[in-house]
């Protein structure tokens, strides 16, 4: 039985590793660091971590290679990617490779704490719903047919060519109580992989929702703004965020996972 630790930070930039370690340390979390993917994997073999924060661009074993290697070792530790080269492709690619979320450098303390909080909660959900290793992971569900951007957000293509986008139930469950939802107004352009909504939680953290599709906002759901709690009760029904006119659907869909046909509980990732 491996010794339990809270967080492993993998980044070749010392100031970033130290900063993250220090902030998490203030929160009473135990933090280990590694300066490349290979060293990170060694740490992963030694301890049982609750969460891994991993840089995308590193000299020895980059973030994507780390994700593949961790998956090969059947690691159930959730991974959140960090990168200084915040392209949309990097963000959505990370989620396709198994990361649960993404944070772009540079970030503030609150942004980091929000994503760490979600990561820890996600790990707890995995443990609660599938305590034995190898058993199925906790599941998400959503409207059919729909596409998912990792465990973060979903998009459903409507017959008229428009798309509904929303936040996944898992994402909402990793937030400690939705207090407020801030949405962009109709007419604004959303870009896949960029933040499209800010959800404030009761513990005063602000959580960015990564947008699953690029397009122009036709309608922002006023009911969600007025009653943030419907996000938790029906994230795939009344709790949708936007109705958009997709601008580059074909390209965007390459980065999304198709949701399963039957309604109910889908894979976490």
């Amino acid at each position, binding site marked *: 039985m491996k010794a339990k630790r809270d967080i492993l930070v993998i980044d070749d930039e010392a100031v970033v590793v130290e900063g993250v370690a220090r*902030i998490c340390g203030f929160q009473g979390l135990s933090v280990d660091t590694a300066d490349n993917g290979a060293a990170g994997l060694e740490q992963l073999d030694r301890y049982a971590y609750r969460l891994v924060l991993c840089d995308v661009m590193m000299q020895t074993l980059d973030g994507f290679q780390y994700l593949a290697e961790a998956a090969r070792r059947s690691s159930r530790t959730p991974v959140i990617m960090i990168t200084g*080269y915040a392209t949309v492709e990097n963000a959505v690619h990370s989620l396709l490779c198994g990361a649960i979320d993404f944070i772009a450098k*540079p970030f503030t303390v609150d942004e980091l704490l929000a994503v760490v909080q979600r990561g820890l909660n996600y790990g707890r959900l995995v443990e609660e719903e599938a305590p034995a290793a190898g058993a199925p992971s906790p599941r998400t569900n959503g409207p059919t047919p729909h596409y998912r951007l990792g465990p973060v957000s979903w998009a459903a293509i409507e017959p008229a060519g428009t798309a509904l986008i929303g936040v996944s139930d898992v994402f909402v469950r990793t937030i400690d109580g939705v207090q407020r939802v801030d949405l962009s107004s109709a007419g604004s352009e959303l870009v896949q992989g960029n933040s499209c909504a800010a959800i404030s939680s009761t513990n005063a953290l602000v959580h960015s929702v990564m947008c699953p599709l690029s397009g122009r906002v036709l309608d922002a759901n006023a009911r969600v703004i007025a009653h943030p709690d419907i996000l938790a009760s029906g994230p795939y029904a009344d709790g949708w965020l936007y109705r958009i006119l997709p601008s580059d659907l074909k390209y965007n869909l390459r980065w999304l996972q198709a949701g399963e046909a039957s309604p109910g509980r889908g894979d976490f990732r």
Partner: protein
Amino acid sequence: MIRRNIGFKLTLAVSVTALLTISIFAYVNIQSHSRSLLVEVERHASQISQTVTSSTEYDMLLNEPARIHETIKRLGGQPSIERIRIMNKTGQVIYSSDAKEIGKMVDKSAESCVRCHFIDPPLKSLGMKERTRVFQRPSEHSRTLGIITPIYNQASCWTAACHAHPQAQTILGVFDVVLPLAEVDKELWRGQMEIVIFAISAVLLLSVIIGIVVRRWVDLPVKELLAATQHVASGDLSYTIDEQREDELGMLARSFNHMTNKLSEARMQIFQSDKLAALGRLAAGVAHEINNPLTGVLTYSSLMLKQTADRPELHADLEVVVRETLRCRGIVKSLLDFARQSVPKKSAADVNEIIQRALSVVERQLALNQVVLERRLDPDLPLTTIDANQIEQVLINLLVNAADAIGPHGGTIMVSSAVLSLSPVGVTQIKQACCPKRHNLIDDTVRTDGKPSVRLKARCGRDEGFVYVDPMYGKGAHRQGVAFEEGKTVQLVCPECSVSLMVEKETCPLCQSGIYAFDIPSGGIVKGCSRAGCGWQQWSEVDASGNKEFVEIRVRDTGCGIPEEALAKIYEPFYSTKGPKGTGLGLAVIWGIVDNHNGMIEVESAVGVGTTFIVRIPVKP
């Protein structure tokens, strides 16, 4: 080198042709001249022969040899006659103007005999041709003509008193008259010489004239073209040729100039896209490299901000650090966005507030440079749909440029804002266009003022080419991809499906030329004049929407100004006048941002007086 010269070759070809033609003409002429002279001489000789025959016939009948002798001697003594003789059937010379010959036998193979004696039995009668012979004696220079006249045995001969000839004899003898052809040959020689001299002079004259003409009309223009191609090959695409001439070479010159012009534009675009690609790589590198240290600054400063909630004096300062670091993050992000030409994130914002924010960033630096800042902000600006971060960046860049232009010795910067209403003509961009069969007409590769043009195919007679319509409605900076003759009717068609775009029964209200039309999927039809040079356009739907509201921001400085030759280049990436201090990206980024907002940027500048940048952003996108 001279052998490869096209003028030399042309002249040579014409001269050789002329030489051949004139030579053939001269040959035929000389032959005909010589023949007719000979015929004349033959006739003359025949006459003499007849005269001698007639003169001696009677004496023969009377058998008066002395009188015959005398007659022949006298006739033969004339200067135009060399010799007259009479031979009997056996070939013996009976009478001759040359007394030494008399009594001698003539060889039957001799000149005068072979005519009849080349066969056996000999010919009894002869035509004119057979009677005449022209020959040259080895000892003499000129030719000689001989004519023989057979003496036939007639009734009067055998019935004559002398009974010299029996009745059975057919031919009694032969008159042989020999004339010298020296005069004739001389005449012929002179004639030939004249013709040869004429031919040579004609060929020479022709060669000279052709040479001059070819040099003037072919050689020089071709040489000029050659020089121009060498200039172009060496990279000088601004080199042009004189295109005054009206002939094919003039057209070639015009085509050449047109081609270099197009090449120059293409090179500029490649250059520009290369620069943009380099900018993209640079931006990506900068983003990666800068974001790491920025993470240190932002995490620690935001951490300190949290820890100093109870110390207001520190807290306020840290707030500035965090806010400005976040702005840095925005700048790096927008640099990446610019490199990727991404859409700005727009929301309704107060432009005056953004101006104030931008000014507060640079205020301190301006104060250090003793720059006086004037604000003339219109308090009634409408909320404008913009990306506030990007517009703030535009303003900060413009303000920093203004401060740099003023230098350390002080000056004034005036920032003003105003709302103005502009006619849609010249400010509305045609962003989508299609033919009646819904083919896209927008061409990304050929840009007008940086914006994708509307590409149409133009047909004029058998010529075809593209026309690039200025995407700014009504601005009229169209470009012809091909030069058509002035005044010819041009048909415009869809480049994809060749469906005609011409509107029947309608003409341009300005110049009465034909008009074209294409659809705008988002609303309406754009009509325009098909004649190059006429910029008339009509887009009723936009005209009907009335004037468009713009927020105008002016940044005026009393700095050094921008020289006129630099004005065209200031928006190019990496163009900088600040030396190692500048990256040359500032105005390129500004241009990209303003363009992404469908706005306009203009500059007014006078060296030594100052510069004003005018940015206009539509209130509604």
